[in-house]
């Protein structure tokens, strides 16, 4: 399975979905700064790994998948929910990579710079990609089962 970019995914979404994500991201960034200011960096740091986008993302995936099946004449909400479950499985791997992002920042500590931040993002992308590949290579039956069920 080769990763590639396609503009097809953008056609599924609506402008308000991007607006919702923008608003949630903005509010969470402001909230984490205010929390850090009032209760210290330990509490503020926790909210840097808060699943702010995930509930909205999973709900949108469920809605898109259900609508897609409905257009194909299949009226079944279960498929949409299973698609959201596949998204959650990916989020588990993303969370492991998020820990690596934090570990890079922790390692650099007070000596951190913009380069450290860039290295942490690359570490996140590398670990997330590697975990996805390993999962796909060694446990393909689960992915294929999910894909078959999603049609």
């Amino acid at each position, binding site marked *: 399975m080769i990763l590639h970019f396609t503009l097809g995914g953008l056609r599924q979404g609506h402008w308000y979905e991007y607006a919702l994500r923008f608003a949630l991201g903005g509010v969470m960034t402001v909230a984490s700064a205010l929390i850090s200011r009032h209760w210290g960096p330990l509490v503020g740091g926790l909210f840097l790994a808060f*699943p702010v986008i995930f509930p909205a993302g999973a709900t949108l995936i469920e809605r898109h998948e259900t609508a897609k099946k409905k257009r194909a004449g299949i009226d079944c909400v279960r498929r949409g929910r299973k698609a959201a479950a596949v998204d959650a499985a990916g989020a588990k791997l993303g969370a492991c990579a998020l820990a690596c992002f934090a570990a890079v920042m922790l390692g650099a500590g007070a000596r951190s710079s913009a380069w450290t931040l860039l290295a942490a993002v690359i570490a996140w992308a590398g670990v997330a990609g590697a975990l996805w590949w390993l999962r796909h290579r060694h446990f393909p039956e689960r992915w294929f089962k999910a894909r078959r069920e999603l049609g």
Partner: protein
Amino acid sequence: MELLWRFLIGGTAVSAFALLADLLQPKRVAGLFSAAPSVAVASLALTLHQGRTEQLAAEAAAMLLAAFAFFTYAFIVERLLIGGARPALLSTLGALPVWFVLAGAAYWLLRGAGP
């Protein structure tokens, strides 16, 4: 004014990761981006810009443990949704207390380990 900048930068970072997730195929990869460090990148970039690097280690340590709370939360949501019996919004919001409990435990651990 600083909070407005935070809002704009945070929103842009989250939208950029979401856009990347929508552009990538196969769609199953998109789940990885649900746990992308978008808010962290925006927040830490502003912290670095303001030169408040002394608090970075504490924030990163807390984030490291909160990432494991995120993992557990995602695992529970996956289990709730896999059968297809529960709606996504109910499952994702209903499992959020798990994240708060684990993040609370992480704070308690880190506060105990601190100076």
